[in-house]
């Protein structure tokens, strides 16, 4: 094998193994069941060049004790399972279904992470974290397309997480 071929192979592997950095994603695609984790929501760009002004993420069923980390300059709100009542106090209250950071301004060429602490479901399985990215000028990118595994990657995929048995 020539050096070129070896390098090309390495490049191919690097590209194939790299997470889909072009999208709004989480920093881990595989999580142990029934565990407390810190998860980062990565926002690598705006919507078609426009600065990001809001991030909303829907928490899939089964994830519990969600606590989002506030970000300076952004208004943090949560929506709980029993309607649109904001969650307060200890994590044992009504489960958080949606977390929203609004009112900031993240230019297209900057990068930001939004942090959640959560407890993973008791049972292993496959879950999606759909995210709505609001941007300046009323632009919206909805990272909500749930593709079956093996299907071609959609334009705006929802991030897929595999919860695996706890060791």
């Amino acid at each position, binding site marked *: 094998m020539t*050096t070129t071929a070896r*390098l090309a192979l390495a490049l191919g592997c690097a590209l194939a193994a790299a997470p889909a950095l072009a999208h709004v994603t989480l920093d881990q695609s595989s999580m142990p069941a029934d565990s407390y984790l810190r998860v980062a929501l990565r926002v690598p760009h705006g919507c078609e060049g426009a600065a990001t002004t809001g991030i909303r993420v829907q928490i899939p069923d089964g994830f519990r004790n969600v606590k989002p980390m506030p970000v300076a300059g952004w208004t943090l709100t949560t929506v709980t399972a029993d309607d649109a009542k904001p969650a307060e106090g200890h994590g044992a209250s009504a489960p958080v279904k949606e977390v929203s950071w609004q009112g900031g301004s993240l230019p297209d060429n900057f990068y930001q992470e939004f942090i959640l602490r959560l407890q993973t479901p008791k049972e292993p399985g496959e879950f999606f974290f*759909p995210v709505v990215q609001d941007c300046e000028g009323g632009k919206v990118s909805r990272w909500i397309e749930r593709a079956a595994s093996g299907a071609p990657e959609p334009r705006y995929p929802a991030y897929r997480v595999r919860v695996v048995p706890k060791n």
Partner: protein
Amino acid sequence: MRRLRSLLLLLGLLLAPLSGAWAHAQLVESAPADGARLDAAPPALRLSFDEAVTLLELRLTGPAGAVALAGPPESRGADIRATLPRDLPPGTYFASFRIISADGHPVGGGLVFGVGTVPDRAAAPVTMAAGWTLAAEALRFLLYLGFAIGAGGALFRALVAEPPPGLAHGLAATAWLGTLATLASIGVQGGGMLGAPSFLALLEGATWATATRSTVFARALVVAAGLAVVALSWRARGRGGAWAGAAGALLAALGLSLSGHAAIGGGLPRGLLVAHALTAGFWLGAFLPLLALLRQQGGGAAGAVRRFAAIAMPAVALLLGTGAGQAALHLPDVPALWTTLYGRLVLAKAAGAVLLMILAAWNHWRLTPRLGRDNGPHALRRSIHAEGLVGLAVLGVTAVLSMSSPHAGAHQHGHHHHAAAPGVAVATEAGGLSLLLEADPARAGTNRLVLHLARGDGTPLAAPEVWLEFSLDEAGISGIRRRMAAQDPGRFVLEGPELALPGRWTLRAEILVNDFEQVTAPLTLPVAP
């Protein structure tokens, strides 16, 4: 040389994660713009992306198929420029591209523009389109006749009395007539979808194959199977034959609900249609057997007449109820009853039904008690004759009603049963939603697309956003995205030149159900030349 290349690759590997904004490249501007209509052919095509891109493929498709570019496209950073051949003929052009953005993701997209005035090719064959519509309506009438007399007669046999043997042959023949008319309607549907220039197209296999893509196909097969069972059941004597005939009638009624608006609404409209068809068949199908029994047995038929009347009363109530229910489901508002063709036909049907009820009441309360007297059977027979004629008229109105559509003229807006011709309707289900897409005229050129969107339970879904992505693989066209305009709840419209070429288009519907949920469904739409 090899070392240099290795070095470059290594450099690329190191720099790759640092460069760019990690975004899929987006097309931010183009000249001509997507959807533009130009007076003269443009000298070049220019695409501008929001970041540097590598062009993989750029294809231009025009009214006569693929268009060769005047030279290889020039790529400069985020811009791509392709020189176009001089004097492009007037028509609609598609540019489809595939690029690789900084993160290595291939991205496809496309745009449409028009040059000059596009001849309205849809206008020419209108006379023949009307011919296909008329043929479809005539066959629909024969189908209803076969259903009412054949399947209705079978229901009479199962629920009221055995008709005289002489009549059984006629009833079986009518059921066969309905079977044949239903099968023939498949070819007529295909001819209408293709916009074939003459009825000779019925001799070509492609015409029939085209119809298999329409919802009409499944309905025709099931209805024909049901009516064939009805026709065969007359050969079996006794209760077994009677119940086989009733089962065939039920199958045919279920088949009727497989196309049209009842088909996308879910359980409720389908159930209404099946009940409506069965009760109408029972009522109309009883005329001939009752007449034959009266002629043969005179006053001796009084038992059968009373048994019929006992079932007919609740059956007619159900018939009217299901008819009103369907009208309420399909008409957008009350004024549509007189402002649309569909509404007027509903009123005509209701008037016919009222006339039938008056005759039936006359029969029941005045003539049936007099059956024992000398001229009793004769008077009742005359009245049933009149009922039969009104019933035929109602069937004729129904055949037009179930095919009425915006093509008929008086129709302004709102719901209508989709047409078999000249438009095309395709249906699918995805993510618990049912979609019915109507294309008018479904011929190459400007088209009006109407998408009806309903939840599983049949209620219309007022989705916040609906997009269609057009592609035609055989012509290399892909990535044309258009947003549909919401009209009434659950009804989305798009009118434009996107379907400029004939062929099997794939329309990918993207339906935003709520902030976090999107349903996508591919629809295949045949577009005629």
